[in-house]
C-alpha cells in the first residue's frame, strides 16, 4: 500500500457559492460519511479541514491575505489515504462529496519517499 494525498478545492470566496447553514450541515454529513467509509476500509491515514482565511507569501517577501485573489479554487481541506495504486486512490477520490458542487475539484497525489512496506 502507498499513501496518497487528496486535496479538495472549493470556491471559498464568491458569496453566492457559499452554502447556507442548513446546506452546510448536509455537506458536512456527506463529507463525514465519505471519510468514515474510507476509515472503515482501514485506508484512512490522516487529514483535516482548513480555515478559510490564510496568508500567501510570494517571492520578494510579499504577503497577501488569503490564496483567493486570482483563483476561485482554494484548498478547503485534505486527507491522506492508503491505496494499492493511483487507480484505487482515484476511485476513492471520485466519491468525494464536494465534487457534487459545480466547479469544485479534487486532486490526487502520491506521497513519495515514505516507507510503506509496513
Amino acid at each position, binding site marked *: 500500500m502507498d499513501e496518497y494525498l487528496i486535496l479538495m478545492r472549493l470556491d471559498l470566496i464568491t458569496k453566492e457559492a457559499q452554502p447556507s447553514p442548513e446546506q452546510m450541515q448536509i455537506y458536512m454529513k456527506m463529507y463525514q460519511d465519505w471519510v*468514515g467509509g474510507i*476509515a*472503515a476500509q*482501514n485506508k484512512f491515514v490522516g487529514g483535516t479541514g482548513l480555515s478559510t482565511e490564510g496568508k500567501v507569501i510570494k517571492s520578494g517577501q510579499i504577503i497577501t491575505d488569503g490564496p483567493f485573489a486570482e483563483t476561485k479554487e482554494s484548498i478547503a481541506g485534505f486527507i491522506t489515504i492508503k491505496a494499492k495504486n493511483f487507480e484505487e486512490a482515484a476511485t476513492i477520490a471520485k466519491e468525494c462529496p464536494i465534487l457534487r458542487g459545480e466547479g469544485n475539484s479534487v486532486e490526487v497525489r502520491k506521497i513519495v519517499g515514505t516507507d510503506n512496506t509496513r
Partner: protein
Amino acid sequence: MQSSEILPHLFRNEYTKIVSVLCKHIGFERLEIAEEIASETFLTATETWGIKGNPQNPTAWLYSVAKNKAKNYLQRNSIFQNKILPELTKAQSEPLESEIDLSPENIYDSQLRMMFAVCHPSISSEAQVGLSLRILCGFGIEEIADAFLTNKETINKRLFRAKEKLREEKTLIQLPEPEEIEDRLDSVLSTIYLLFNEGYYSISQNKTLRKDLCLEAIRLCSMLVENKITDKPQVYALLSLMCFHTSRFEARQDDNGEQILYQDQDKNLWNYDLIAKGEIFLNKAANGTKLTKYHLEAGIAYWHTQKEDTKEKWENILQLYNRLLQLQYSPIAALNRTYALSKANGKEEAILEAEKLDLKENHFYFALLGELYSDIDNTKSLENFRKALSLAKTSHDKTSIQKKIDQYPK
C-alpha cells in the same frame, strides 16, 4: 454468613488491600513476600475461625494478623535490617519502623499506586491485565486462566515473568510525576478497558466470573476519578462507557447462555441506575479538548441505551463511528458502522459500502450482508447467511445464524 462463605468473600476484598498496603510499605521488590503474608493471614484465619468460630470483626482481625506477620517478617529478616534497610530508607519517605497503616485512606492510596505500578509499560498488556486481576482484584490463578481461556501454568509463568521484570525495572509504588501522568494513565486505562472487554465480550461460559470482571474494571476506574491527579476527562469517558455497557449485561444472554441480539433485548432487564450514572460521567468527560476513543465509544454506548429507533439516534451513532474509525481502525467498528449506516442512510447505500470492506474471512461480515440484503434480495440474503454459517467458529454463533436461515422458506 457461615465462616465457609465469609472467607472467600473477604479474600476477594481484603487480600488485594493487604498486598497493596504491604507493598507500599516494604517495596515492590518484595511483592511476593507481601502476597505470602496476605495468603498466610488467610490460612491462619481458616484454621483459627474453623475452631473458634468467626471473630466479631473479621476484617479488623485479618488486618491485625497481617500487621503482626509483617512485623515478624521485618524483625526476623536480618539481611534486610543490615543491608537493604539503609538503601530503602534513602528511597522511601516513610520510615520502616512506622506502624503498618491499614486505614481506609492508606488502602485507597496504596491500591491507586499499585495500579500504576502493575500497569508499567515495561510489561506486556496481557501481563498488566493478569497482574491487575491478581493483585488488585484478588482473582485466583484458576479464575484468571478461565478468563483468558488458558491453563494455570501459563498464567503462573506469565505473572512470574511480569513480576521479575517489574523488580528488574525497580518499579516504584507511587503515582507518576505530573508530566508523566497522561502517558502512564493511558496504559492504566487500556488495562482497565481490556479487563472490561475480557468480561463483556469473552466467550467464556462462566457468567458470574464475566460479570465480576466488568464490575472490577468499574471499581478500578472509579478509584481513578476519586483522585484529583487522575480524574481526567478520558477516565470519566471510560467509566461512563463501562456503566452503559454493564447496564445491559443481564439482557444480553438467555438462560442457556445464548447471546440475545440488541434489537431483541428485554429492556426491563436493563439497569437504569447504571445508565443514569453513565450519563453523569459522560457529562464530566466533556471537560477539556482531548477527544479519545473512550469518549466516542461512550457516546455510541449512550445512544444504545435509548431503545427507540429514531433517525437522530442512528445518525449520531453513525457519526461517532465515522470518527472512531478515523482515530483507530478495527474490523468490529467497521462492521458496526456499516450497520449504523444502513439505519441512517438506508440499506442500499450500506450494501455498497459493505462490499468495499476487506473482511471476507469474517463470519460477522457475511451475517451483516445477510441482514442488509433481507427484504431487498432474499436469495442473496440467504446465500450470505450460509457463508456466515460455514465460517462461524463457536456453537453460539452457529445457532444464531442458523436461526436466521430457518426464517426463510425451504
